């Protein structure tokens, strides 16, 4: 299983969150918004200036900055849908 950092994910690619690093507050914030290990998502897009990034989750849409995305390790899914 190869983990990549969320920042490296391309637009429209899918993945599953595997691990959240970072400071305690950062981790807590990320989890509070529903990003925790096991959650599947799709990279919906990036803002016009390539940062922040928008994620489509099963029932909601979350946006976070690239430097916050650095704390999230992801197992990418092959193929596009």
């Amino acid at each position, binding site marked *: 299983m190869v983990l990549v950092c969320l920042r490296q994910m391309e637009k429209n690619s899918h993945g599953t969150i595997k691990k959240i690093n970072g400071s*305690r*507050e*950062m*981790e*807590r*914030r*990320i*989890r*509070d*918004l*529903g*990003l*925790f*290990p*096991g959650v599947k998502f799709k990279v*919906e*897009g*990036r*803002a*016009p*200036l*390539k*940062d*922040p990034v*928008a994620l*489509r989750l*099963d*029932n*909601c*849409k*979350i*946006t*976070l*900055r690239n430097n*916050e995305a650095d704390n999230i390790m992801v197992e990418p899914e092959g193929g596009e*849908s």
Partner: protein
Amino acid sequence: MSISLALAGNPNSGKTTLFNALTGARQHVGNYPGVTVEKREGNWVINGKTLKVTDLPGTYSLTAYSLEEKVARDYLLENRSSVVVDILDATNLERHLFLAVQFMELGVPLILAVNMMDEAESSGIEIDIKLLASLLNIPVVPTIAREGKGKKEIFEELEKFDISTFKGSGFEISYGELIDEEILELEKLINGFSSVIQKYPSRWAAIKYLEEDPEILKIVDKADFKGEAKKRLEDLKNKTRNLFDMDPETIISDKRYGYISGIVRQAVRYKKESADRHKMTDKIDAVLTHSITGPVFMALVFYILFKATFAFGEIPMGWLESFFGFTGDVVTKIVPEGLLQSLIVSGIIDGVGGVLGFVPLIAIMFFMISFLEDAGYMARMAYMLDRVFRTFGLHGASVMPFIISGGIPGGCAVPGVMAARTLKSRKERIATILTAPLLMCGAKVPVFVLLCGAFFGEKAAMAMFWLTMGGWAAALLSAKLLRSTLIKGESTPFIMELPPYRMPTLKGVLLHTWERAKQYIKKAGTFILAISIVIWAMMTFPQLSDQEVSKYEQIKQNVSVEYEGTQELDAKLLEADNLLRQAELKNSIAGRLGTAITPVTELAGFDWKTNIALIGGFAAKEVIVSTLGTAYSLGETDPDAPEALSDKLINDPDFDYITAISLMIFVLLYAPCFVTVVATAKEIGWKWAMFGVISNTVLAFGLSAAFYQTARLGIFS
């Protein structure tokens, strides 16, 4: 017994909509003591009973990291007699249950209102409410807050609660053997700390201790002389790290989600694929946040915002202006000429009238802002512009306050400062509020029109453009300076939800608009009235001695004799009268102050006439042009028709284009008008408000003096 209830829930759960549906217009907005989080309270009248309803700030969790979470949590801990109605978005139940479970663990009397049932149904989500209630063992009510559906059901459930005997629901989640045992041990320990159990339920405190909640850590460790709890936590951390490579906190959070997933799997059925359910929002986003069409659309929104504000705002503003003008005329006729008349007309009516004249503007602006916010578009603007604003230590959501304050010429910093409430992080909010008044607000425009018209002729439009850009540069750079000195520190995490697009309800938008307008009007009636009188007094007292006045009367006499019967008589008399006004103004406190500071202000090229106008401009920037007119003995100059003043300035040998530029720099950047200062104090406190007055004035003077001196050197060398 009267029951009170507290509405809680995630942001975007429809919490405020439900609050509006319950209380209607019987509500008021204040602040929680000591913090700037809005506190909405209202009365819900149902079946002949009146219930007090408090709308808690929207939160995702109860970790007490953000101000909102802390406020909500403290409120619940301190008001144990309230029944909590937790509003959940039916289309997003799993995420919203995360907060509900934390309320259950806290042991508060709880009713779940599963909201937006209609939307869930149309998105193919089926929720078995009865099963959900029995699985969680608490009352669950389906609601459609937008249509007011579910109120009766909430009331029925509410009546079943007997608060006096309520002892918690006994709800417990299993966090795995290791942690469960530790919670029990800690609970026993904490039961011995009276300072802790007075405020917190012991099991909840034990869980929070293991989650390393900063507040609980502090209070428990303080009571725990032997450091027993601390040692237990360290031991547990070592164990979980060895066994699972995780901290207890992470395990607890995972188990909570696990528990919720289990419940949702049983009680919720999805009849459509996720992609189908969000088709609408995703399709709109594909255009509105697209890298090219997104910014174009956003610029269009800004443009419409301004066009509409002024197009719709001008009409009622005109009415108000005529009304106050009429009132002034009536008073002039009834009250004999003299100080009392001057106080009422120039001090009170002009001062308060000038401020109230903004009400339509503010109302319309907030109408549109509430619309954009409720529709879900504000979050997208923050998303698209965050990268730019972050460079300067601000936040994507700083864009709205900036634009409203005058990012496009013609804004107003008062609603701008108020609009900064959408910023949840304190540091970014302070920086935004302090720098937004540097932008080109509508009241500064007449000053620039006058000066550009007089000294730049055909290039006036270009000069206005550069001034607007200068405002932006000053605001962004000062924000950067503030964020790297006085309010420095890591930016608060940006991570946020992009809510689904929804059509806002008229009622919600109108209530929000009315609230803002009401707050503004209240201020005009109290504080601003007082300051208007003070500034009037400063420009009126001390009065000229009888001797001086008679000197001017003599001049008038001479004029009327000399020009008797000629056509010039009226003009010459007015001229003489204006000389008197000029002498009166120069002799007043403001005039003397203006004269006294001349040695300093000369550095930037300002003489006493300019100084008085700038002092008057602290009341409202519009006053600058009219006061300058009086100081140049032109009588009160109408800011809309400043030709005479413009000629005077051109002919004044001490006033050239360098002075004009220096003055424009100063006017653009110096102390915000006092209405803005009051609004700032209300949002972030008097200390920051006064800081803004001083720092902006220092910045403005430094820049204009630097410019003036350099430019003069260039000319004379």
